[in-house]
């Protein structure tokens, strides 16, 4: 336990300092608040060995809360627990409370506390990786009441096995307009343990103005994409910014290709995970196509060691023509830190079809990842579930998310469309509406976390040519055993 604390503390320190630096070099200034939050977290971790906890104060964004919907929600006042002081602890993976998803979460929290003055919600936030580490520490010492989770085997399998999440009554959510299939990842043995927050769609963002000025066309086949890579390179521009240092974006790229090759990889992947045998020709082809892209110079030099921020900066500074990332970055179109000329010209297309592949152009790589759950050991479980349900009322997460350009929620959002959405948002809506099939969870998140760690590391080696396709497929197979 003490060992855990020490590690936990180290991670926290690293987090803080990373943040400070990131701020110093001015990459993501909007994340300034998260430094404070992380520092609070470090204090919490220090005290963590003694089982006490500190919580970060919620950021002030009350003004932004939608007053109209607050009124609406007040009609359905809480039946019980009124007047009785309740403190809910929320543990979230959204440290940025001023932008995007974190802002939306905070708006709902503030609204809820205003509505029920007896309820105090304490928020603690950490970035994804540190979040997962702390989550584990909490699972041993007692979870906060409401937590962020991921409805994917790589995260949820171990968590559900440990029995730390409360079962939810699925019938309660009949009118919550969840999209078909979006709850699947959050079930185990027919029981529901969490609710999805987003529908994530993987896309290739591109700079439309740059494309038009140079006469480049959005590629319709994978070969065209690779040919385009050469053309763009010849023009002295980076074709596609890739966050290869983290591994997971490339693993999604691999999944995207696999989906275009197979038309549906669920069974293929689950069989491969069960047997540890990834020798199927589809895996070989997908790996080969990824390698072809790297060899063709589609990605920037040194993509395999560059992080999210660096890759994204290449695109938002106009040094790269395309950027491979999920729909959660659709708020780039509203981000005023990005020069307007670029911000207004960001458009998206999806992975083009692969020759001879079964996947159609309208079959898109999309899944339901992040979400929320309630702790099984919570002392105020009823109140926590009530808050969870409040967040998921269709006019909360979905509506606010939509208005803040966060991307697609896991609920039907059509009624919140105003016609004033950014072009990028409209494109994503169109992609979903026209979709003939969606992929479901990406390959790296289909297996246990040991598999996830392995594939996300090995994929760097196979794409940069330091290991062969065979070695790659054998290595990821080994990690399933």
């Amino acid at each position, binding site marked *: 336990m003490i060992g855990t604390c020490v590690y936990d503390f180290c*991670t926290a320190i690293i987090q803080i*300092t990373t943040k400070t630096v990131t701020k110093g070099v001015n990459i993501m200034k909007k994340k300034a608040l998260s430094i404070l939050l992380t520092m609070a977290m470090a204090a919490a971790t220090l005290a963590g060995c003694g089982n006490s906890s500190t919580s970060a104060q919620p950021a002030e964004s009350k003004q932004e809360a939608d007053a109209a919907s607050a009124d609406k929600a007040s009609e359905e006042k809480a039946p019980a627990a009124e007047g009785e002081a309740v403190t809910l602890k929320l543990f979230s993976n959204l440290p940025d409370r001023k932008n995007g998803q974190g802002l939306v979460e905070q708006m709902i929290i503030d609204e809820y506390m205003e509505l029920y003055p007896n309820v105090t919600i304490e928020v603690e936030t950490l970035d994804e990786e540190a979040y997962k580490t702390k989550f584990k520490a909490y699972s041993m010492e007692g979870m906060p009441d409401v937590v962020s989770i991921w409805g994917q085997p790589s995260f949820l399998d171990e968590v559900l096995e440990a029995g730390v999440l409360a079962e939810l009554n699925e019938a309660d959510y009949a009118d919550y307009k969840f999209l078909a299939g979006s709850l699947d990842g959050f079930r185990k043995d027919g029981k529901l343990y969490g609710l999805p927050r987003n529908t994530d769609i993987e896309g290739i963002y591109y700079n439309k103005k740059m494309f038009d000025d140079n006469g480049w066309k959005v590629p319709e086949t994978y070969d065209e994409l690779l040919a385009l890579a050469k053309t763009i390179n010849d023009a002295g521009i980076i074709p596609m910014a890739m966050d290869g240092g983290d591994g997971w974006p490339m693993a999604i790229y691999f999944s995207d290709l696999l989906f275009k090759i197979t038309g549906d990889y669920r069974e293929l992947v689950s069989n491969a995970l069960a047997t540890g045998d990834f020798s199927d020709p589809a895996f070989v082809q997908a790996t080969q196509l990824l390698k072809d892209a790297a060899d063709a110079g589609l990605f920037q030099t040194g993509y*395999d060691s560059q992080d999210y921020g*660096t890759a994204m900066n290449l695109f938002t500074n106009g040094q790269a023509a395309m950027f491979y990332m999920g729909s959660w970055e659709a708020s780039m179109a509203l981000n005023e830190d990005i020069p307007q000329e670029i911000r207004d010209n960001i458009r998206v297309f999806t992975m083009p079809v692969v020759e001879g592949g079964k996947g159609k152009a309208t079959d898109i790589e999309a899944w339901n990842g992040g979400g929320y759950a309630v702790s099984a050991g919570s002392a105020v479980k009823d109140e926590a579930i009530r808050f969870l349900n409040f967040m998921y009322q269709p006019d909360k997460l979905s509506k606010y998310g939509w208005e803040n350009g966060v991307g697609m929620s896991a609920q039907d959002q059509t009624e919140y469309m105003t016609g004033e959405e950014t072009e990028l948002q409209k494109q994503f809506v169109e992609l979903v509406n026209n979709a003939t099939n969606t992929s479901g969870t990406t390959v790296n998140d289909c297996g246990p976390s040991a598999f996830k760690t392995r594939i996300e590391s090995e994929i760097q080696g196979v794409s940069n040519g330091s290991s062969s396709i065979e070695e790659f497929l054998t290595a990821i197979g080994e990690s399933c055993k």
Partner: protein
Amino acid sequence: MRFSKKKVEKGERSSEMKKLYSNKLVITSLVLPGLLLFVFAILAPICLSVYYGFTDYSGMGNFNMIGLENYKTLMHDKVFWLALRNSLFLAVGFICIQHPLAMIVAAVLDKLGKRSEGFFRCVYFIPNVISVAVIAYLWKFIYNPDFGLLNNVLKAFGYTGKINWLSQQNAIWSVLVVLIWHGFGWGMLIYYTGIKNIDPVLYEAAAIDGANQRQTFLKITLPMMKGVIQVNVTMAVISALKQMETVYLLTAGGPNNATQFTANYLYQQAFKAFKYGYGNAISVVFIIICLVVTVALNKIFEDREG
């Protein structure tokens, strides 16, 4: 009169102190805090690590005892051996590149004198004062192939290609440079202090005998610094073995484990891959390796002294 009274008082006091120090209760109360700290912060976690090393604990929920299974896996774990090799590579790099440089710079500094001495001492020590995270990000930018300082400097000299400093092949060297640069000031400062402690009379004598600078350095400075070198080398090896934070922030062990180090790998397995038991097995082996290396180093130096 007054003088002698003082003396008496002093004598009484010291005998009282002696009494106090021979009181077992006092001894215990003085030793206990340190002992407790050692037991709970070092010994207990190690024992727990040994225990968890025999389990398949994921970090959450229940676990089973699986005996030596983790250690068997470890023997065949290519990444672990790669990480260990990298750690040793780093140690060798420190001893062969960083320390000779640090010592020479310290000797030169000693000769500078006056203001410039203080100025350069300060300049060389600056990297040590900066937080590891700043260092890591600083170098991330320096190494960036598209807008990094290094490639831009090369461009100024007419080289137009883009060198990928953190590629699979180059990354370990790039990391070594950062770590050498970062730890340089510390090593230099210790050598510098060592040199300052050498009796100037020796140098005077050497000068009278007509020794040149090189001879003075080889025949006086170096032999007189034996103890300092021993301390520095031991510290260098230990810091190489437990290297974690710079690498974690600079490359996170990538690309594809090219810059993986034992401590970082241990962390990844225990906390990212949900293999807490396995991570602990790695840490046990790691502790043993560190102990063996330290003992071996001490032996080597002992022999020399003897």
